[in-house]
């Protein structure tokens, strides 16, 4: 075991209080504010080595030769490995399609692809050794966009594809394509009084979580390995890691370390296999920590997209039809692209009633950086485009943009373009009403008695304006996001709940493999256990692979699915505890047999409030433990031709109003306020709910005005892999974010809750763009919008 940084068991207690619906505090809060919380990069082990990855310096090339002799000869170097050193026949991995080489084999397909790995006794030694590895490349032409990908003579990014999508795509450089056809868009278009077309571009966004990829692999006596890792899904990692190592899954033990944010960027593997390979090769613990530069190459990004839309509406403001084509750039490897395509197509119309649609979404293979999961997952790109379209149509009709949206807003019972009825509340019009009803921030807040406070003006501390050129704009947007894994995926989670007496008190222990990445799942699990088991003390066991899979911390699903699993397991435990009580004390009181019994305040009580026994007495000398899988309602795959199918289990909705001030001469933007209204079904922890909404909103703001990974179209090389040139919002870029939380229960979900993490990231971006359009009068068909786009100097 590591001498340092062992994940700590967390116990939370607050008397009989602290159940669901309360803003209880994070159980890991004290550890996190004292610096004691052990993140994956904090792991340390006696005698550990440092791993280093050598990455390709070109995007697309044949590898002519690799010479590792000089690197191996360097004192302090313990191992150098290339593709040829991989121990088994399994040399690729991938979330859905196993197309990603553990180390490059004969070819590299994107800038920064891992080619070789090194283990040494100091990170600097490892870096020097990696620099001494000689790789000779023969460069190939790069595929960087739809035109180059689908050209008749296009080089294939992957030759000999045999995955399950190759049969239905028109070209091997298309990962997956999902059309949706419902009604007859051509006929409906004839009814339209106005038709609005638009072409939109969405830039490549990075998750930019603050804790870079890192982990520690420790070889074990049985020939296996123990990996301490920051990830979103332990069991998915395990399924991909074990075959490459040639180990059965039971010999690859995984423990979740502290995770410094994720946002989709830890859905795929990064350094996991590399650290394990080096640990097994050297027989020593190996730690790998990416720096920020490497992190930009070490994980997938949000798909950049081209979106082509046509909306029609009648004079009285009813949408007639939507046609759209969404082209996502998946980059060199598939990652989550197929599922992103499914979301982009099925959510491409937005939260509106449209009976006649003609939709297609596809993801390309290119030599650009691989793209995959990021908060909002395909729905973000679509929302940016359809909300721009909604504003354009409203303008064309001379209608108020909010009223136009409300007129077409979906509600419970609306049928999606996929033919699936929305079977829980969909308060789209109400969210818009609420966000519009919030008071507007006062004008010219930057004016003070001592002149202009530049901190409150566009440009901020840079002192570019004292009010000159500054124009205010207001914009609205609303979005729809699916919750949980869709398209027939067996989406389940597992919870083990144990109840026993410790130090004279009843204590519940909740053990899941859920990755706590900051979202507050650990807080909520303790709340659920308190509510269900009536105990004050709840211990959250560290997440590991010694319990069944929890699924990923993504798709806004953990509170729903793992929360559901914890609730379910608690209910089973409660039944067993009551059974125990009946056996021990049933003869003392008839209510044991006849009444509805609850566990409250550490006691067994009747629903009338009569105390039957102390839990301490019921549990004396016994422990009750249940491990159980729990699933949400099944979903179906989308038909590959028509896109019809009950593909999603739940939807989540948020609306934003953005107030911006733009320095119209310099093209600099200050977002003054980003108000949000969101339906959360049931707020299990209101403080955390608001925190999620504000955080998601800010990531949407980032991609509206500054965040973009810039890839050179000629070389497919990343031009800004640093926090100097990939900018994310600072506290001076982020406005006040008032949040109005609506709680309309979804009867199908645990406690009526709705997944919340992603929806606010959708509508934030188009709201900001709409506000900037309002201030400048410009069309603005791309995001992020940069100063040159606002000043005609692009």
């Amino acid at each position, binding site marked *: 075991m590591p001498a340092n940084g062992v994940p700590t068991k967390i116990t939370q207690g607050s008397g009989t209080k602290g159940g669901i619906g309360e803003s209880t505090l994070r159980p890991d809060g004290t550890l996190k504010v004292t610096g004691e919380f052990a993140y994956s990069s904090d792991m340390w082990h006696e005698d550990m080595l440092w791993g280093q990855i050598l990455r390709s310096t070109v995007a697309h090339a044949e590898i002519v030769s690799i010479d590792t002799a000089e690197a191996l000869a360097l004192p302090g170097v313990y191992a150098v490995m290339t593709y040829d050193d991989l121990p088994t026949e399994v040399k690729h991995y991938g979330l859905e399609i196993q197309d990603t080489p553990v180390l490059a084999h004969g070819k590299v397909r994107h800038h920064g692809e891992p080619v070789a790995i090194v283990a040494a006794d100091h990170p600097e030694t490892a*870096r020097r050794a990696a*620099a001494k590895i000689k790789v000779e490349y023969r460069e190939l032409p790069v595929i960087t966009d739809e035109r180059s990908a689908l050209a008749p003579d296009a080089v294939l990014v992957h030759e000999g594809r045999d995955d399950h999508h190759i049969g239905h795509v028109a070209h091997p450089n298309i990962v997956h394509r999902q059309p949706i056809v419902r009604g007859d868009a051509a006929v409906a278009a004839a009814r339209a009084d106005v038709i609005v077309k638009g072409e939109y571009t969405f830039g490549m966004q990075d998750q930019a979580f603050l804790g870079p990829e890192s982990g520690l692999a420790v070889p074990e006596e049985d020939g296996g390995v123990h990996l301490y890792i920051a990830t979103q899904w332990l069991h998915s990692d395990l399924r991909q890691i074990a075959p490459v190592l040639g180990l059965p899954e039971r010999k690859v033990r995984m423990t979740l370390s502290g995770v410094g944010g994720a946002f989709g960027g830890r859905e795929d593997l990064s350094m996991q296999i590399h650290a394990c390979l080096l640990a097994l090769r050297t027989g020593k613990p190996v730690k790998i920590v990416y*720096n920020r*530069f490497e992190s930009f190459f070490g994980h997938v990004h949000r798909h950049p997209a081209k979106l082509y839309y046509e909306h029609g509406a009648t004079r009285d403001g009813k949408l007639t039809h939507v046609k759209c084509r969404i082209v996502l750039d998946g980059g060199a490897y598939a990652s989550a692209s197929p599922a992103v395509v499914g979301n982009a197509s099925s959510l491409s119309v937005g939260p509106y009633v449209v009976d006649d649609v003609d939709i297609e979404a596809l993801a390309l293979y290119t030599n650009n950086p691989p793209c995959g999961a990021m908060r909002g997952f395909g729905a973000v790109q679509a929302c940016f485009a359809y909300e721009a379209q909604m504003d354009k149509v409203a303008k064309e009709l001379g209608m108020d943009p909010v009223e136009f949206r409300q007129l077409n807003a979906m509600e419970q019972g609306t049928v999606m373009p996929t033919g699936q009825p929305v079977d829980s509340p969909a308060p789209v019009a109400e969210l818009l009403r609420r966000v519009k009803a919030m008071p507007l921030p006062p004008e010219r807040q930057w004016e003070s008695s001592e002149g202009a406070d530049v*901190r409150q003006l*566009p*440009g*901020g*501390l*840079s*002192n*570019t*304006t*004292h009010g*000159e*050129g500054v124009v205010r704009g207001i914009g609205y947007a609303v979005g729809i996001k699916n919750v949980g894994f869709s398209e027939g995926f067996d989406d389940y989670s597992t919870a083990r709940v144990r109840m026993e007496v410790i130090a004279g008190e009843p204590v519940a222990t909740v053990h899941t493999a859920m990755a706590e990445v900051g979202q507050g799942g650990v807080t909520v699990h303790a709340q659920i256990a308190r509510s269900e088991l009536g105990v004050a003390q709840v211990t959250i066991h560290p997440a590991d692979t010694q319990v069944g899979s929890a699924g990923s911390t993504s798709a806004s699903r953990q509170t729903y699915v793992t929360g559901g699993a914890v609730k379910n397991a608690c209910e089973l435990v409660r039944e067993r505890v009551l059974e125990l009580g009946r056996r021990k004390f049933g003869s003392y009181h008839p209510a044991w047999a006849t009444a509805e019994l609850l566990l409250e305040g550490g006691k067994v009580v009747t629903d009338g409030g009569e105390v039957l026994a102390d839990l301490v007495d019921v549990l004396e000398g016994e422990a009750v433990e249940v491990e159980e899988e729990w699933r949400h309602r099944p979903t179906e795959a989308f038909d590959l031709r028509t896109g019809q199918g009950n593909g999603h289990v739940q939807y989540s909705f948020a609306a934003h109003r953005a107030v911006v001030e733009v320095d119209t*001469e*310099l*093209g*600099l933007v*200050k977002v003054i306020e980003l108000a949000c209204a969101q339906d959360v079904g049931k707020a299990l922890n209101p403080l955390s709910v608001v925190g999620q909404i504000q955080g998601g909103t800010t990531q949407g703001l980032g991609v509206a*005005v*500054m965040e973009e990974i*810039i890839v050179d179209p000629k070389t497919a090389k990343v*031009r*800004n892999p*640093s926090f*100097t*040139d990939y*900018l994310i*919002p*600072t*506290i*001076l*870029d982020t406005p006040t974010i008032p949040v109005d939380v609506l709680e309309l229960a979804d009867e199908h979900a645990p406690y009526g809750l709705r997944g919340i993490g992603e929806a606010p990231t959708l509508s934030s971006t188009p709201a900001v763009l709409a506000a900037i359009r309002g201030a400048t009068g410009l069309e603005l068909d791309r995001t992020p919008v*940069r*100063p*040159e786009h606002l*000043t005609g*100097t*692009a």
Partner: protein
Amino acid sequence: MDFLRPASWEEALAAKGEHPTAVPIAGGTDVMVEINFDHRRPEYLLDLNRVGDLYEWETGEDSVRLGASVPYSTIMEQLRAELPGLALASHTVASPQIRNRGGVGGNLGTASPAGDAHPALLAAGAEVEVASAARGTRMIPIDAFYTGVKRNALEPDELIRAVHVKKADGPQQYSKVGTRNAMVIAVCAFGLALHPRTRTVRTGIGSAAPTPVRAEAAEEFLNAALAEGGFWDNGKIITPSVAKQFADLCAAACNPIDDVRGTASYRRHAVGVMARRTLTWTWESYRGARRTEGAA
């Protein structure tokens, strides 16, 4: 790599003389990033943190002798009156943490066209005091200091001791465009200083040419226009056409490139806007001061 820790200025010069490839490190803003990201592996690091002289400044009759390591946060807080342009520029440097440690010596040593201090130094007028153990001290006029992209007029055995910045004799302004409202590298920057004593205007442009530059043609034009119209005496509002031509000439002084931070075309445009605004702000301030003086 060797780490040299001179305890005094003399020791520092001796070390630099003995190891001319030694890389001086003070605030670490540039050097440590290059080391952390494996862009640079100097044979010697020459730590200047223990050279107390570099953290001091003296205010003379005409200029401030500003030690190379005086942190930007100190310039912001304590030299606002003497060096208003540089104080404003200092406030735009990176983050509070970096302003607490970085000084003008680092900007000058790196000589990146994006260094925030340069336009303010060019506009105020300054001389860089450099020294070597072998040849002693020499003064390099700021206009002759920047010799190429990230190149300066220092000899390999020289270190920057201080910069002598002209004390403000009139209003000064500084603006910088970045694509974020804080902690951002300049897309381009502009400094402007009015010098009523000599009845001249000086400028400085950052990040819009291979080196920091002055917009000399714009200065000459404005100096002539102000003199011709008697503006220095009558304190009239500068006519929009004069301001516009000044701005256009400043934009024309740029020789920018397209890069990930911005387009060349935007840089030219933005320099023009900043030139016009900073001229307006400084001139309004000059007129205000004249009125106050007149009233008194």
